[in-house]
């Protein structure tokens, strides 16, 4: 804007009249503004002072009858930037741009004066701002833009500060500039533009200097005089910047400010120092060091989140369900550590898009490949070799990441002299490919394919295997300025098999498969500063082959069995709103409608009402055609969480959620076994339901160096599954006759202290929790512990984890991992009896005893290769000792009858210190 140098026209008139007297009749019709003012001057007898330019935006189209000068001016100037001042003494009217004329000096202009006399001059407007005196600079600096005046002062609504809003745009491209910081000089007030470049800042009335800064945008200063609320759009130029070391801290305060509770994030790369068994990186194992996540014991696969069963976790790898994310009984993760970016864990109310499991969501994300150059990462450890390669397909646009991993334990086992082990076998591998393509700013697609397989046998007669296979495709696209859409399709397949070839003539092959396909479309709309909407729809189709057994040869005594396939359809509609009620108070409210239909083709049995389900109480056999709905279940799910900030780094949060689960594992083991099958809800097996409420306090200290949180939860579960003792679950066509459905409750308090920065970092977590279940049926077979609540197999009230890294120098660091847990409950015999010439123990109440407490210390020493620039590969060596104290932690105590004698056996998994060295490299 050019500087205005205008000509001042002064119109002087000799009329005298009182401005408040209603004696002027004037018509605004068919007149130009200047004609109107000329006429008004004449009619009122006042002299008007103004610049003709100012009248540009004044529109006059009404008539005034017997109106006062004051009213007329108020009326015609409303909606303009102009104010007026009527000097009664001089019979003059001054039109003013933006400002008002102060006819009284500010309160203490002359210092303290006589009380009585000041009282008379008390101004009605208590919050009258100090006048904005501004001296126009005669010389303008080159990068300074002209002064802007905002708003029109309104005597009736004078405030000490006004709101300035507007949009920041790139002057070259016209695009919005997000994340632009707008500061007020001399104050610490800052505003940040949102994704659409919009900002909103409170400025003190009067003269201000605002400065803007953002990455890639030239800094700018702007003088602003605030008369009222108003808007100012900023057109900013680009700049080239020399980047300094960047420390990203954007997420540092997230734990306090997010409205949701019970969220954890583990970044694979950051977890690399944590010592774990055999030097294997394992983010799922690291997750167990966080409060509220545990497992039944070392070598027990399956995680228990906040007292939930192991089948209540939704584990997603790039949006597709991974049924068994572990290798070899849970000791190793089935994820390539170098392709895995992070895992987000939701223990409380998960985002509305997720559902179908009661306890938690583990959302594992794979890295995008490098779009610049070929790079890779790998490791060689005592058990596995890992490799990940990243290939750019098209620079800056598309890339491929390929990961492969394998165990060479097989080779070691075979090379051992020990006869009993040379027949053993244990091998596993997993591989992943992810392709990522960015079409443009508004659209990107990625696809993932994954496969993992385990083979193991300890005796030469049986070979077990299981495998996961999944595919997923995700398309992110921008529908409008405010709305982003994501379309995803995923397919997962989990199967296991047993190949038995023993000395007895019952050789067989057994197979189990579950397959699911999901299609989901979700949208995110940023309605305004206060509302962010997430909504969408998803549908999932399950099909399982609950098992088949076939004789391996025609001589075998095995009778072939093939349990009929099951099908199910799961759907959901969801909507959620991140609602920012005020700066301090925000809520996430979500609703989800979950729907499930068990589908034919199928044969279902109806059992006599009120009697234990058994083959003898079958009243009817129902046949369903292919695609026919057998039974539908479903209902609304709530996801509500709220956060109140006491201070920017101290908050309180509360949440409530409920969920339905339509798919269940059938397991009659105390811990997860790889041959546990998944069963879909059907006519006789109801879905599980869960309700959870949580409350927590979150505080960051010392510039986010320390995070402290204390969270409590209470959880109720309904229709969770358990089984009659000794239930035969595999290949059972009437499996519902073995199933018990009961209730569960879990509660706990979780404390977490985290130090995120500095040479010494890590966390300390403590959880007190209980997990209790109750199965109270009609007959004694359908009751467990007489229908009373009993502790679950993973009920470990006290759980302490300490993880610490100490960086000695840039290259050397120490790390440690300490765990203490109450011993898990076991079922202990209460008597012995003689039967069939042997002694057998009698069991009665479940989980009445506990094995001794568990504790373990692991230490690691990490050496980073030197940081020379042009080295071929960058190396990283970890030397670790697992279970340094050599504590022989009992894993289980159980009883066997051997040669007619009953005896007690105690097993332990890693009873002695286990050293390992892993070599990692990166190029």
């Amino acid at each position: 804007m050019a500087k205005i140098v205008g000509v001042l026209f002064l119109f002087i008139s000799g009329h005298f009249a009182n401005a408040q007297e209603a004696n002027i009749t004037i018509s605004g019709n068919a007149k130009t503004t200047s004609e109107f003012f000329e006429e008004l001057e004449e009619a009122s007898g006042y002299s008007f002072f103004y610049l003709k330019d100012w009248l540009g935006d004044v529109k006059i189209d009404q008539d005034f009858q017997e109106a006062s000068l004051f009213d007329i001016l108020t009326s015609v100037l409303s909606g303009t930037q102009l104010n007026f001042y009527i000097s009664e003494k001089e019979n003059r009217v001054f039109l003013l741009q933006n400002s008002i004329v102060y006819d009284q000096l500010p309160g203490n202009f002359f210092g303290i004066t006589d009380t009585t006399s000041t009282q008379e001059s008390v101004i009605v407007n208590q919050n009258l701002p100090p006048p904005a005196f501004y001296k126009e600079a005669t010389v303008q600096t080159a990068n300074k833009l002209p002064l802007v005046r905002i708003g029109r002062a309104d005597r009736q609504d004078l405030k000490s500060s006004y709101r300035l809003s507007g949009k920041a745009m790139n002057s070259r491209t016209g695009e919005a500039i997000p994340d632009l910081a707008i500061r007020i000089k001399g104050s610490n007030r800052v505003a940040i533009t949102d994704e659409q470049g919009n900002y909103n800042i409170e400025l003190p009335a009067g003269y201000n200097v605002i400065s803007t800064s953002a990455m890639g945008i030239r800094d700018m200063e702007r003088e602003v005089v605030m008369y009222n609320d108003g808007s100012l759009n900023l057109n900013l130029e680009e700049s080239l910047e020399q980047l300094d070391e960047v420390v990203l801290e954007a997420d540092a305060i997230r734990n306090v400010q997010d409205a949701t509770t019970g969220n954890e994030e583990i970044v694979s790369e950051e977890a690399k120092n944590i010592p774990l068994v055999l030097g294997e990186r394992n983010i799922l194992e690291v997750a167990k060091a966080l409060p509220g996540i545990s497992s039944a014991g070392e070598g027990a696969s399956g995680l228990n989140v906040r007292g939930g069963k192991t089948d209540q976790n939704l584990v997603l790898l790039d949006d597709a369900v991974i049924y068994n994310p572990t290798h070899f009984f849970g000791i190793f993760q089935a994820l390539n550590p170098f392709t895995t970016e992070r895992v987000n864990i939701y223990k409380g109310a998960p985002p509305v898009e997720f559902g179908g499991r009661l306890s938690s969501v583990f959302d594992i994300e794979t890295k995008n490949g490098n779009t610049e150059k070929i790079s890779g990462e790998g490791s060689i450890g005592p058990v596995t070799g890992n490799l990940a390669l990243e290939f750019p397909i098209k620079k800056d646009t598309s890339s491929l990441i390929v990961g492969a991993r394998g165990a060479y334990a097989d080779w070691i086992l075979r090379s051992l002299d020990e006869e009993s082990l040379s027949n053993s076998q244990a091998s596993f591998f997993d591989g992943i490919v992810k392709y990522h393509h960015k079409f443009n700013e508004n659209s990107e697609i990625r696809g993932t394919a994954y496969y993992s397989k385990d083979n193991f046998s300890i005796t030469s007669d049986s070979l077990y295997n299981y495998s996961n296979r999944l595919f997923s495709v995700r398309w992110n696209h921008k529908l409008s300025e405010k709305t982003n859409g994501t379309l995803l399709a995923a397919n997962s397949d989990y199967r296991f098999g047993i190949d038995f070839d023993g000395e007895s003539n019952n050789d067989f092959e057994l197979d189990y498969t579950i397959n699911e396909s999901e299609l989901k479309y979700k949208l995110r709309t940023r309605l305004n500063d206060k509302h962010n909407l997430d909504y969408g729809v998803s549908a999932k189709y399950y099909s399982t082959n609950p098992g088949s057994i076939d004789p391996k040869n025609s001589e075998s005594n095995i009778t072939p069995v093939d349990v009929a396939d099951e099908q199910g359809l799961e759907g959901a509609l969801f909507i959620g709103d991140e609602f920012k009620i005020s700066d301090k108070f925000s809520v996430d409210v979500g609703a989800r409608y979950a729907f499930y239909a068990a589908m034919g083709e199928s044969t279902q049995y109806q059992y006599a009402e009120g009697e234990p389900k058994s083959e003898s109480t079958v009243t009817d056999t129902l046949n369903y055609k292919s695609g026919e709905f057998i039974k539908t279940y479903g209902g609304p799910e709530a996801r509500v969480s709220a956060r109140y900030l006491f201070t920017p780094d101290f908050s309180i949060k509360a949440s409530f959620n409920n969920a339905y689960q339509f798919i269940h594992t059938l397991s009659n083991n105390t811990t997860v076994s790889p041959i546990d099958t998944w069963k879909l809800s059907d006519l006789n097996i109801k879905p599980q339901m869960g309700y959870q409420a949580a409350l927590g306090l979150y505080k960051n200290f010392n510039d986010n160096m320390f995070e402290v949180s204390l969270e409590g939860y209470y959880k109720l579960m309904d229709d969770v599954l358990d089984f009659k003792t000794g239930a035969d679950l595999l290949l059972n066509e009437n499996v519902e006759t073995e199933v018990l459905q009961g209730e569960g409750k879990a509660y706990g308090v979780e404390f977490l202290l985290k130090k995120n920065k500095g040479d010494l970092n890590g966390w300390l977590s403590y959880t007190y929790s209980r997990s209790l279940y109750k199965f109270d049926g009609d007959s004694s077979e359908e009751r467990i512990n007489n229908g009373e609540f009993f502790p679950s197999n993973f009920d470990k009230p006290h759980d302490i984890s300490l993880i610490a890294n100490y960086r000695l120098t840039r290259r050397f660091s120490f790390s440690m991992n300490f765990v203490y847990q109450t011993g898990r409950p076991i079922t202990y015999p209460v008597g012995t009896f003689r039967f069939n010439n042997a002694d057998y123990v009698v069991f009665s109440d479940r989980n009445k005893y506990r094995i001794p407490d568990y504790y373990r210390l692991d230490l690691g020493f990490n050496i980073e290769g030197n940081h020379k620039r042009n080295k071929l590969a960058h190396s990283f060596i970890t030397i670790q000792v697992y279970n340094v104290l050599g504590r022989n932690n009992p894993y289980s105590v159980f009883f066997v009858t051997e040669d007619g004698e009953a005896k007690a056996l105690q097993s332990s998994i890693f009873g002695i210190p286990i050293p390992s060295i892993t070599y990692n490299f990166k190029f």
Partner: protein
Amino acid sequence: MKLYKYLYKCVFALVLLTCFVACLEELDIDTLGDTSASDLLVVEAVLTDELKTQTVFLSRSDSRLDLETDTIYNPYLTPGATPYDSVTVESAATVKLLGTDGSEVMFTEGEPGKYYSNTPFALAMGTQYQLDITTSSGDGYLSDPIEVVGTAGITDVYAERMINDIGVEGVAIYVDSEPLSGDSQYYRFAYDETYKIEAPLWNPYDFKLTNYDNTTSPPTYNLEIVEREVQNKICYNTVSSNSINVLSVAGNSSANINRHLVRFISRENFIIAQRYSILVKQFVESQDANSYFEILKDFSQSESLFSQVQTGPIYSNVYRKDGAEESVLGYVEAVGATEQRLFFNYEDFFPDEEKPSYAFDYDCGFETALLYNPEPPPACPQGLLDRIEANIVTYYSEYEESLVPDASCPGPYVFVPKLCGDCTLLGANVVPDFWEE
């Protein structure tokens, strides 16, 4: 599944250290802390469709973990000084079997806890039976109705030399069978094995000690070498199976059973050193009985080190008559039974090969000692007279240096531990009726 069944030492080695992962150790538990299930009635009855004297065994559960004294031979303990078995039996009960056909069979206690039918009888197919028990304290118990659901015939029992899954060489005994009538889907196998024992250092003469008084010094005694009055060179011992061997051909009741393994005996086991006989019993049982035995088996073996089966109460098919909540242990079943016997000698499978060592892997050797040790006792082994008195040695010969070279305190005789010179410690000296040479 029998995964890991045999691996009680160490299971899985990943690194070059042979054993560090997953170890098992036996806990030394004598008595269970919780005794809430001790002293419960245990009923065991396998009633068959064979015409014979049927048996019902009644006992009580205990709070001790192990009801059997370990069968480890101690050459310094008098045989029979410690009880071999210590099961609390339930005596003086009234036991009868009631059939829906109006039959009623009474049982009488023959040995403590063992009740034998007053007359031989066979269960009839198509008839349901209930076992009725009234204990001496007056409590009445009744079993669920049971019936013989099917029968099957054994077509062959045979033995083969083989190496088993964990690399042990021995003899495997298999059975073949075919269904005969009814619903034969669930099978259970048991056996009685009888083996011939020959005392390796037997001598037709033995010590006869009389008037022994070791309270005086020197002791008074009268020791003679006399010809043995009882035959104790060759004995026969019969042992019943104590493991659960079940087989299901559910869904196919017409299936033949081929090569089902009934028993595997390591070639190191002394029971097959001479002549061995096995009576294989095949029971066709109901689904309910099968599931009882399956669960009992599942709960009493280690399936996998990493995941154990969830144990809990196993429901018996016997209840209190008055409806009182009382757990009863054991099971009463009605089976279609058949049996077949097989004989073989060690040489049949291991001709001209080394024989297994003697019972308990005991290395039988000659010994000598002073008749008694003069006061104060010198550094000599226990005197011979004390050992004869304790009944732990048998006579072999007069002292002969070549038999016991470098003996520290040679005495007048060479003798051997009783186990080596008298087979009645290991079996009965009567040839069983069925025995065929």
